């Protein structure tokens, strides 16, 4: 049993506070990804769990025991570092087995375990090589094997894939996922890459400036970002965010250039008039052919396209603000040409402009689910 309980944990260096009272409860066997831009305190948090940084305030407990004052080796964690941190003068086998050697495991038993672990990560033919003779992916595997051999209660990953090239990164991502399915060890994975985070996580923790913005399953975070920050950070591209004003009736949004959009009253029954940030997924927008009848949507002007292979991202401008539309197929627009957009009212997500927080909607879908 190795649930991790992080309660009101903070970290300051002198007078600068980098982590502000963070709470996360991680269940046994769960794979949690901490996601955030660089400098948001995510690595610091991970290092506090590992015992490499002192905890300035709050408690971290692993398996029900508070570990604040314990040495890293007494916490039962293993860590995979960003730059692998392999001992350059030791062979692969020595690198993997070093933890056991320090722990005083006799040579023969050590060798057997090193070989077994090396086999599971496909390194058994490289045991005599030095890290300098290995490729990036192989070094990454050595780092994983070194963590695995200790049979830790908790795996900690500190941006382990960010030094690999794109293809290898995808491959290692899959391997880490498989490994977790087999070992079922509690894992905490820190990254700034949201694709990595979405694909690996059982649950996502999104951090910004030392505080948690949102915790939730990847799909929930994607569908219902809790704040403007999360909305812009999650998804490729992030949510389109437009400044708008809610009219006096609480039912229409107007953009700076006077264009209007209806709000779905079933989802947002009691909106206060005033400024608001509107979020729309690029996939939720559709471009309507110019010929098709009267139009209640928005009018934007085309800038350029990004080719994705499976479709295109159309970059446009609306009311002086950038907007991205995802389309299937190919669309030959010229710069400056006008686009007519259909915006389904139920796809609008509203955020308070002052606090940046989501304006919660009455969840129509849940109501239907419950009725059924």
């Amino acid at each position, binding site marked *: 049993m190795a649930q991790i309980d992080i309660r009101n944990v903070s970290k300051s260096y002198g007078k600068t506070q980098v982590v502000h009272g963070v709470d996360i409860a991680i269940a046994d066997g769960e794979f949690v990804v901490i996601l955030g831009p660089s400098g948001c305190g995510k690595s610091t948090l991970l290092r506090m769990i*590992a*015992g*490499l940084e002192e905890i300035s305030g709050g408690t971290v407990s692993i398996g029900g025991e508070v570990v604040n004052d314990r*040495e*890293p*080796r007494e916490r039962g*964690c*293993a*860590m995979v*570092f*960003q*730059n692998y*941190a*392999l*001992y*350059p*003068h030791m062979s692969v086998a020595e690198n993997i087995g*070093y*933890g056991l050697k*320090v*722990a005083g495991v006799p040579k023969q038993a050590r060798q057997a375990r090193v070989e077994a672990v090396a086999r599971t990560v496909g390194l058994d033919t490289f045991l005599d090589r030095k890290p300098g003779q290995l490729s990036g992916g192989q070094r990454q595997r050595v780092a994983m094997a*070194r963590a695995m051999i*200790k049979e830790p209660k908790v795996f900690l990953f500190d941006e382990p894939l960010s030094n690999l090239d794109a293809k290898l990164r995808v491959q290692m991502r899959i391997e880490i996922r498989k490994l977790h399915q087999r070992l079922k060890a509690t894992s905490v994975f820190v990254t700034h890459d949201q694709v990595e985070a979405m694909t690996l996580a059982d649950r996502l923790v999104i951090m910004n400036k030392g505080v948690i913005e949102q915790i939730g399953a990847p799909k929930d975070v994607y569908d219902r970002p809790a704040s403007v920050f999360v909305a812009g950070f999650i998804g490729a591209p992030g949510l389109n965010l437009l400044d708008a004003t809610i009219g006096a009736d609480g039912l229409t949004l107007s953009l700076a250039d006077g264009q209007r959009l209806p709000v779905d009253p079933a989802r947002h029954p009691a909106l206060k008039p005033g400024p608001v940030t509107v979020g729309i997924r690029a996939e939720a927008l559709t471009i309507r052919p110019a010929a098709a009848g009267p139009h209640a949507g928005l009018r934007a002007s085309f800038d350029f396209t990004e080719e994705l292979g499976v479709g295109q991202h159309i970059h446009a401008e609306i009311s002086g603000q950038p907007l991205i539309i995802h389309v299937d197929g190919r669309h030959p627009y010229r710069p400056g040409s006008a686009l007519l957009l259909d915006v389904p009212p139920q796809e609008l997500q509203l955020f308070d402009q002052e606090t940046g927080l989501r304006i919660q909607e009455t969840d129509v879908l849940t109501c239907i689910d419950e009725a059924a």
Partner: protein
Amino acid sequence: MVERTPILNILTHLILITGLVMLLVPLWIVFVASTHDFRTVNTVPMPLWPGNRMIENYTLAWNQGGFGPKMLNSFIVAVGVTAGKIAIAAISAYSIVYFKYRFRSLFFWLIFVTLMLPLEVRIVPTYAVAANVLRPYQELLDASGLGALLSTLMGIKVSLPEWSMLNSYTGLILPLIATATGTFLYRQFYLTVPDELAEAAKMDGAGPLRFFWDVLLPLSRTNMAALATIMFVYSWNQYLWPLLIITDIANYGTAVMQLQRIVPGPLFGEPPRWHIAMAGTLMVMTPPLLVVIFMQRWFVRGLVQTDK
């Protein structure tokens, strides 16, 4: 930018060759002198081609100068000083780089400024301490009034025992061991070692000593070799210090001290027998030369520190 033009190539080679000749000619003359008999060496001008008395001269220098035991002494001292310097440098730099404590950088700079105080500058006080190692403490005791206080209170005159390092290997080695150069070299090396390595060792359960021994020392091998080369040559060539503290030359004299006694000294009598003195010089030069030749590959790598 590397330029390749024939004229520049010739020019650079000319400069190199000139430098080499300027370095080698004196050595050649020493060698030539060591192969002639007394009369030929003292003719003016001296011949510039080796003579036929080489073996006789060298045997005579070796036997009469007693270079066997003296070289052994020199070797003991050089190895002792080198090992001591490396140990002290590695440990003190480890403390300065890897541990956080008050006045850490002050200590580093204190070590660093001793670069400006070579042995020759502080030779008198160092001699005083070597003659009586506990004397500074005795003086502290007396000057602080603590000694007087103790003697009035308890009626005992506190006097620390005398411990002299004169005429001993300890005296030859210990005062030379502290090294700012080495500490600095090691500090620079430790700074290039990624922090993550120390953290990985922590996660592997290795304590500070274990990390030092298992990771840092093996990684610093080239560094160590470079330091060893410099320090071996430095301590082999020590002249003033042994001359000062060793009076029992028969037992503790070093090879370089012995050189001082052969021209035109008491060993061979007047007038100076240059042919034999030069033979002795060349023999005394050989061990550090061999060390440099064998270590040069490591030496350069350790100082340039590119393979990381």
